[in-house]
């Protein structure tokens, strides 16, 4: 069901989403919201992989499986990052990046 939708439309959507994620990573000062910006970036990259697979190489599934692996890596990264945030919260009682400037305790 992708007749009359050129590939550029999908790519423009994913590019805009990627740079919104980058912008959020720069603007935000809270660790969890920065993690959410990273999830936006990973999701934009996933759209790119799947769209390139569907439009340019529809006879194989490389982009599809790469996107699947990126989702798994995002899950692993989110779980480790959130474990770190909870540990940081125990020591500093907040998770704003300005207040966390030392690793020794």
């Amino acid at each position, binding site marked *: 069901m992708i007749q009359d939708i050129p590939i550029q439309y999908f790519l423009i959507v994913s*590019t805009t989403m990627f740079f919104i994620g980058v912008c959020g990573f720069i603007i*935000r000062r809270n660790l969890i919201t920065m993690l*959410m910006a990273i999830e*936006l970036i990973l999701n934009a990259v996933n759209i790119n992989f799947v769209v390139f697979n569907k439009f340019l190489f529809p*006879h194989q*599934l490389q982009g599809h499986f790469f996107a*699947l692996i990126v989702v798994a890596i995002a899950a692993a990264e989110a779980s480790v990052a959130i474990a770190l945030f909870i540990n940081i919260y125990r020591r500093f009682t907040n998770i704003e990046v300005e207040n966390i400037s030392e690793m020794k305790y």
Partner: protein
Amino acid sequence: MELNQLMFFLLAGLILFFSVLAITSRKILRAAIYLLTVLIATSGLYFMLNYEFMAAVQLTLYAGGIVVLIIFSILLTSHISHKFEQPALANVFAGALTGILGCGVAIWSIIKFPFVTTTQPALVVDMKVVGTQLMNTGDYGYALPFEVISVLLLAAMIAAIIIAKKGN
């Protein structure tokens, strides 16, 4: 305008609108819900491309798993009624400048680039094809990345447990 084009523009509008809201909202729980909307609209895009398995994985793993994890950690680490203060003007300026410049360059090169489609016949992607290719070791087989990713997930799980454990 055709119906599928209408659907595409609806999903694209949802994605862009809610991703902007997700990085500008001053309440953290709302930002998480906006992120959830973006992820669900993305799975709608995958459904449009006829990759049903990818869309299902997106819904269950991203929208179901990661967002729930993020919401739990929000509830553990911050007050729900807490509002962020306005970010510093220099930060907003730097972020917006990076975003707009990068976006402009990338979109300009996308529009200029001549995309060439392969002439081979398209593969009908059903669940059987996905399963055989994921577990295959020969041509068009992805068994090695599958195994590597399972080891990575195990390592990440053990690391998360050890890091978040109380005491030593």
